[in-house]
């Protein structure tokens, strides 16, 4: 089908805001902050996407979902570019999305608590005596404990609530 007009990029951003993340479908790819730029280069729409984690297996699916969504809105010529810098940070997850995460059962990231690998001052924390409180997304209790820094997807850690006894995911800071 021949394309007759180029939709405004504001409109394109709106369409992208309806593309769910394949692993956490309650938030969109724009909520996550991984769509960095949308521009027209002549007749080609260029969407710049940054990966959350280098090896996130969802990256390929995300690119495909973006492409399919744009095609369904009549855009034929699409190029998806990968951009590494600046590296993605969980700080880019917007406020609405954090609420959606909580409602879905995933504790949203607590900004400024990313691991920095500077161990010497962190030995107490490393030994399991965490100084960070993650509230249970189900019952709101802060009586929780970390099970593992790694969870069901690269972007999450595993926690457990000691009051309602439910395990839950925490969207960790990076």
């Amino acid at each position, binding site marked *: 089908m021949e394309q007759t007009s180029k939709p405004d990029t504001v409109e394109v951003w709106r369409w992208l805001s309806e593309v769910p993340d394949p692993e956490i479908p309650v938030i969109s790819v724009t909520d996550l902050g991984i769509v960095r730029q949308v521009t027209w280069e002549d007749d080609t729409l260029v969407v710049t996407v940054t990966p959350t984690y*280098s*090896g996130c297996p969802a990256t390929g699916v995300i690119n495909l979902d973006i492409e399919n969504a744009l095609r369904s809105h009549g855009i034929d010529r699409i190029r998806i570019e990968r951009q*590494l810098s600046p590296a993605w940070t969980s700080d880019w997850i917007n406020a609405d999305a954090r609420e959606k995460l909580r409602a879905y059962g995933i504790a949203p990231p607590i900004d400024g608590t990313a*691991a920095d690998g500077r161990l*010497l001052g962190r*030995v107490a924390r490393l030994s399991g005596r965490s100084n960070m409180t993650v509230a249970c997304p189900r019952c709101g209790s802060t009586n929780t404990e970390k099970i593992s820094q790694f969870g069901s997807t690269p972007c999450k850690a*595993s926690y457990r609530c000691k009051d309602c006894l439910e395990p839950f995911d925490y969207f960790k800071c990076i």
Partner: protein
Amino acid sequence: MATAVDQSAFFDWLQRIGDNALVLGHRVSEWCGHSPVLEEDIALANQALDLIGQCQLWLGLAGEVEGKGRSADDLAYLRDAADFRNVLLVERPNGDFGQTLMRQFLFDAFHINLLRALKTSTDKRVVDIAAKAEKEVAYHLERSADLVIRLGDGTAESHRRMEKALKALWAYTGEMFHDDAVDVAMAEAGIAPLPSSLRTAWEATVKAVLSEATLPCPETVWQHGITGAGGGKKGVHSEHLGFILAEMQFLQRAYPGAVW
């Protein structure tokens, strides 16, 4: 003032950093479905993913620098053992869970400092990959250090195993910090730090964690891969790498060009 970059040395160096991530990523992935508990299985698989993702970035850049049209996949699946440039430490067998974690910790403590130093590389592409990888590796180091402490300062059995792992792996740590002609060329071009310059920070981290883990830091011992003709950075590997490649490369060797 940075001197002109020797592209063949740069290619070699990129394979070193990429192959470290690839081979360790593969080793760690061997645990998938076999870990002592589910949470550790998930953690190991996620770290393997991070490392293989980083390897794709490094080997992708290596192919670009080489300029012969080879992709990251071509380099990962179609080179033979003598063309791999990873250090011997990362190809050491997994052993038990303690040995896997000790190997991870000894490498993570080196890896984080290397990536941190690469953030001031004169090559923007190196800076971008390092900045991304550093954030992931910070979590790897937290986890491996945490578990080395918990297992070292754990039961008599876990302590014994961690001490055994440390002794077995210690002779493979020196290669990470040994400077050769490729390293000197990279340092002179401002692309990468001299490996020897990373040793002090590594020792500080390792000593602090081992002390917390109640594990005695080994004495100076003879190191593999530095003297003589051997050494992973030169492409002279232990017998273990061939078995890794046999598994990792089988599909592309048997069915060239196969895709999902």
